């Protein structure tokens, strides 16, 4: 092996100098062209004076380190490498920063991992809340994005965390838990955008999403009880309203009944009076025609009606009554009229 190594270069040198020199001269032209083409290809391969920009990307070209041009997707030429360098950031890609948790980017369905240090914070009324947030963003200005900030994503995370805590710290816990989440999101986004502008970070904040906000585990039952209490309040009030809804129509019905009864009493009373008066008027007319007989007749008819079917004791003379009362004061209903007559 070592022999073969030592011998080989000597042979090549010896053979090359004496025998192949004329051949080289003979093939100068054709060989030169081939050589030039080969050299040209070599230069192309080594320096690669072209580049492609993929869909959604932009090509940012630096010439001698200085920003020269920004090109759109497609095939482009450039000067060889030390002179021009190219960056191709994707400006369409929706990027995201997560605060308080990290989702598994390889497996979107998997449960995310909580980052308690980021998610537990103080509210304006000195309560503690667990709040998580997602910020979605895109590259808006590729030059600023590439050349202004050392670590863009980490910077955005810092800004977002500060903004989240600043806003949560400005509101009572209730706002963050339920009512004013939209407003909080808007405020957080405003602060993130303000700071981003200050840094000239070159990003567009698409969306700030407050994820779950809840009370910390140790006090969760107390918060749940407040919720229940609110339900209880509503229920008790509903029950009272139901009572009201039941009682009011009932009372209205009673009122209507009372008034109707009064109305029917009135109608009856007047009708009755009219009837009686009409009857009286009719009899009066008769009476005026024959006063004596009519008077007698009325009297007798009435007495006839009164005395019919009633137990009676007929006493002859005035003192008979006294006798009768002395004998049987308690037996007035007994049919003893015959006896009495006989005794008389």
């Amino acid at each position, binding site marked *: 092996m070592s022999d073969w190594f030592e011998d080989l270069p000597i042979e090549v040198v010896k053979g090359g100098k004496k025998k192949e020199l004329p051949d080289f001269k003979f093939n100068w032209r054709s060989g030169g062209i081939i050589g030039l083409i080969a050299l040209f290809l070599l230069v192309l391969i080594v320096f690669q004076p072209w580049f492609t920009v993929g869909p959604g990307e932009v090509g940012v070209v630096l010439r*001698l380190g*200085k920003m020269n041009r920004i090109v759109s997707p497609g095939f482009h030429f450039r000067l060889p490498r*030390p002179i021009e360098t190219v960056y191709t950031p994707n400006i369409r890609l929706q990027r995201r920063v997560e605060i308080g948790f990290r989702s598994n980017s390889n497996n979107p369905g998997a449960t995310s991992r909580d980052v308690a240090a980021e998610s*537990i*914070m*103080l509210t*304006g*009324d000195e*309560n*503690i809340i667990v709040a998580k947030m997602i910020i979605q963003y895109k590259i808006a200005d590729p*030059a600023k994005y590439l050349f202004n*900030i*050392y*670590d863009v994503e*980490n910077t955005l995370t810092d*800004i977002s*965390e*500060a903004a989240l*805590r600043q806003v949560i*710290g*400005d509101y*009572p816990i209730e706002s963050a838990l339920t009512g004013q989440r939209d407003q909080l999101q808007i405020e957080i986004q405003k602060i993130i955008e303000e700071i981003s502008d200050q840094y000239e970070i070159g990003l567009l904040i698409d969306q700030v999403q407050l994820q779950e906000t809840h009370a910390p585990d140790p*006090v969760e039952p*107390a918060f749940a*009880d*407040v919720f*229940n209490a609110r339900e*209880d*309040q*509503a229920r*008790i*009030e509903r029950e*009272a309203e139901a*009572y*009201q809804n039941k*009682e*009011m129509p009932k*009372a209205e019905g009673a*009122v209507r009944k*009372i*008034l109707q009864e*009064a109305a029917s*009493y*009135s109608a009856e009373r*007047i009708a009755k*009076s009219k009837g*009686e008066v009409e009857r*009286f*008027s009719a009899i*009066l007319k008769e*009476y005026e025609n024959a006063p004596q007989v009519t008077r007698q007749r009325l009297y007798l008819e*009435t007495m006839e009606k009164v005395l019919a079917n*009633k137990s*009676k004791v*007929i*006493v*002859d003379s*005035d003192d008979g009554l006294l006798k*009768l009362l002395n004998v049987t004061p308690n037996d007035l*209903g007994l049919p003893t009229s015959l006896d009495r007559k006989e005794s008389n």
Partner: protein
Amino acid sequence: MKSQIGLIIAGVVALFIFIVIISSAFIITEVDQAIIIQLGRPVRVIAGDSAFTDKVELKKSVEEYSSQSNSNVKLSFGAGLYFKIPFLQQIEYFEDRILESDADPARITTGDQKRIVVDSFARWHIANPLKFRQTLVNMPTALNRLDNIIRSELRNRLGECNFIEIIRSTNQLLDTKIEIPEQKKVSIKIGRSKIMEDVTKVCRKTAKDFGIYIIDVRIKRADPPEQNMNAIYENMKAERDRIAEKYRAEGARQATFITANTDRQVKIMRAEAERDAQIIMGQADAEAARIYARGFIKDVTGQPPIQIHGFESDPEFFRFTRSLEALEKSIDNNTSLILNTNSDLLQFMKSPMSGINN
């Protein structure tokens, strides 16, 4: 052979020239700044084009350095191709991008003697590479120094402030419709935003001596330490219990109000109805009495109206007929009657001819 040696010499010279050119030319990109050092002394400053570099001030600073050190330091701005003397001069690169400083959380006692753990971060930029190189030499020293500056200023400033000033930025909490316990409705005078601005200003001034421009210092977290958490949780629980109790009491109060109001209204409605009924009946009674006394005009459609006479037209006859009626009504089937034969009715029982002889 001679020509070959000449060729080799020519090649070596060409190579040497090439190496000289290569090693003397260098590129400063958009993210770099640099200082060219010759035998340990800076001779040229290439500063970045960043918005955070005050060019006028930097120029003044470089001129000042030149006159002090009795040398001529050149200054240029921006990325591009630059040259230096090979071997004799070295380049030192510095970042032209915004850098971060994220110190470990610091335990701080606030003005109202509450202990908090504050985690802050800062963003900064090398505004004066020459000063930076002179005072701090390299990045690790710079970061260390920045930590110290920021941490001590935070400690000073937060130590003067009440806890709530560090948590809140505005007083909008006081205007919220959500109910908050009175003792927590504290009006703040400074607030977190303002504190951060103040800290930034002071730190910026200090860091300027190191060629650094501090863009901002921000409080990321300001939380009570772990061991204080339980006390806060206890407070939260008590507050929630109170709120829950209030909701229930409010519900009961409202329900009682509705129920009582309903009962009252029902009573009023009934009473009013009774009153109206009495009025209606009274009017009817009056009307009836009038009709009894004076009669009425009977007006049947299709016939001429007739005057019906009331009882008043013959009071004596009314007394007679009404007495008879009363008599008839007051005597029912269970009544026993004792009649005297002397009565008008029975007078014919004894003497059928009575009256005629009279």
